[in-house]
């Protein structure tokens, strides 16, 4: 039991807790449930989980506050449960350090894909480049030393900026990076046109990768929020 991944669920809705517990336990995760923010804080500190699933709408503490508290202590991946129409909450959570969000209502497949991706992404916690010097995602390979990207062994010619964006996303694979975060890290500054600049670059990257809307396999699109490098090779993207 002890070598299973430990998932802490902080959620006050009993039925959702039951659902999450069933889904996660039947997929070989060890599940801890906290029914309030205060409880969650304590359990986080005493159990040292591998992943936190956090509902933003808790009765006692604002979920975003809890993200701050957790981030002061550790780099554990956090998945936020949020409402679909609330991009502001999503962006805020991500900027505070959450790895990902799942919008309610969600299905089991979607949840499990995010959970796998989040736990995997923690290998590169803190955005440190992986020691392997290579990033592999399906048929896409990034050679960090040579700054070369290949798909199906064919080199993809990117500009410096485009490469930097892809590298940044790959280092944080599985994690949603907000537009603002990417702009800050790639250009080092931001102005009113910089998000558009990022979007234009992304469109070019996708064109070079040969990706069409509805079929993005490498860089996933979080509309109104940011981008995410796919990390889940078992993902049902085909």
């Amino acid at each position, binding site marked *: 039991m002890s070598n299973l991944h430990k998932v802490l669920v902080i959620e006050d809705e009993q039925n959702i807790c039951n659902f999450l517990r069933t889904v996660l336990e039947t997929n070989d995760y060890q599940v801890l449930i906290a029914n309030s923010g205060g409880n969650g804080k304590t359990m986080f500190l005493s159990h040292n989980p591998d992943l936190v699933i956090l509902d933003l709408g808790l009765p006692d503490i604002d979920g975003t506050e809890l993200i701050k508290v957790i981030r002061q202590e550790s780099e554990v991946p956090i998945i936020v449960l949020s409402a679909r129409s609330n991009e502001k909450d999503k962006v805020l959570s991500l900027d505070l350090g959450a790895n990902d969000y799942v919008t309610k209502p969600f299905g089991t497949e979607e949840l499990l894909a995010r959970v796998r991706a989040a736990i995997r992404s923690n290998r590169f916690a803190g955005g440190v480049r992986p020691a392997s010097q290579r990033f592999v995602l399906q048929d896409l390979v990034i050679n960090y030393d040579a700054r070369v990207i290949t798909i199906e062994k064919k080199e993809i010619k990117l500009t410096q900026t485009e490469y930097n964006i892809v590298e940044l996303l790959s280092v944080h694979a599985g994690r949603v990076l907000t537009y603002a975060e990417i702009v800050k890290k790639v250009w080092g500054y931001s102005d*009113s*046109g910089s998000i558009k600049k990022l*979007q234009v670059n992304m469109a070019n990257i996708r064109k070079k990768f040969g990706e069409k809307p509805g079929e993005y396999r490498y860089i996933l699109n979080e*509309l109104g929020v940011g981008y995410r490098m796919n990390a889940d090779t078992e993902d049902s993207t085909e």
Partner: protein
Amino acid sequence: MKKYWSFLKNGVFSIVVWLAFFVISVVVENWLETNTMVPAIFALAVFLISLYTDGYIYGILVSLLSVLVLNYAFTFPFLKFNFSIPENLISAIIMLIITILSSALATKIKNQEKMKAETYKETMRANLLRAVSHDLRTPLTTIYGCSCAIEEKLDSLSKEQLQQLIQGIKEDSQWLIGMVENLLSVTRIDTDGVKIVKTPTVLEELIDIVLMRFKKRYPGQKIFVDIPEEFISIPMDAVLIEQVIVNILENAVQHATGMTKLEIKVFTRGNQAVFEIRDDGCGIDKERMENIFTGYFEMKEAPVDHQKRSMGIGLSVCSTIIRAHGGRISVENRKEGGCVFRFMLDMEEEESE
């Protein structure tokens, strides 16, 4: 900011109108060589200003000004204030009464208009609510009934039966999710009359999200996409426009009988992005076409069967959303069969750069 703007607007309007009438008075006085017309002209000015400005204050200020000017410039003794003559005093009082009455009248009319708009909104909301509650009952019956059956008969149900019940729960909850998303879209527009917030949205990313969401719900349905090669960014509330496209696609899947091809086409025309969703199904008959975006037809005549529900609210939500964007939405039958839904959004130039 808004207050300041209204102050400026009302103030400028009052001054302009009043000056215009002042000039008219002078002209008339010189032309007819009598000042008997002047009070009437000023009364008209005061009346107009009271009618077309907000509240009482502008009307009263203007009427005081008129009384003073009338007294000073147009009545004996000329170019002197003199309130000792009873006629002057009485005309001043009459002027004030006119002002107050017409301001009161104007305020009343405005309130009535506001109430009319409010009532219209209320009716729309009530219609929506009725359609929704009516539509909610069916899936809830399935979900509640199926789960009760599973709970009570868990041991005696065959695997196939169980699967069927669960499938029913899943399908109807998906339908409910769709309904809730639509309702949320409407509230997102309606809350305290705030205008929607438009952010520049990349067309291909929008289409990607639409396709992903649609694929989750209808994995078997292929959609052809035809969008311009170049980078296009359109200011919109992406969550809402996504909802519009998904609703129209969903409508096609559910109602376009005999459809073999479903297509999204987007192109630019002048300063507008034109979105077209085409199918080659059975088309829409004329009677239905007229009310397709109001949801009215559905409520009145729709059979309570599983297939037809929700069409009304989906499309009326579309039209609400597009109108809130200042765009236009329409539908027509295609010559070659099937129909095409079309909506247009403005693509203002990016203010940055």
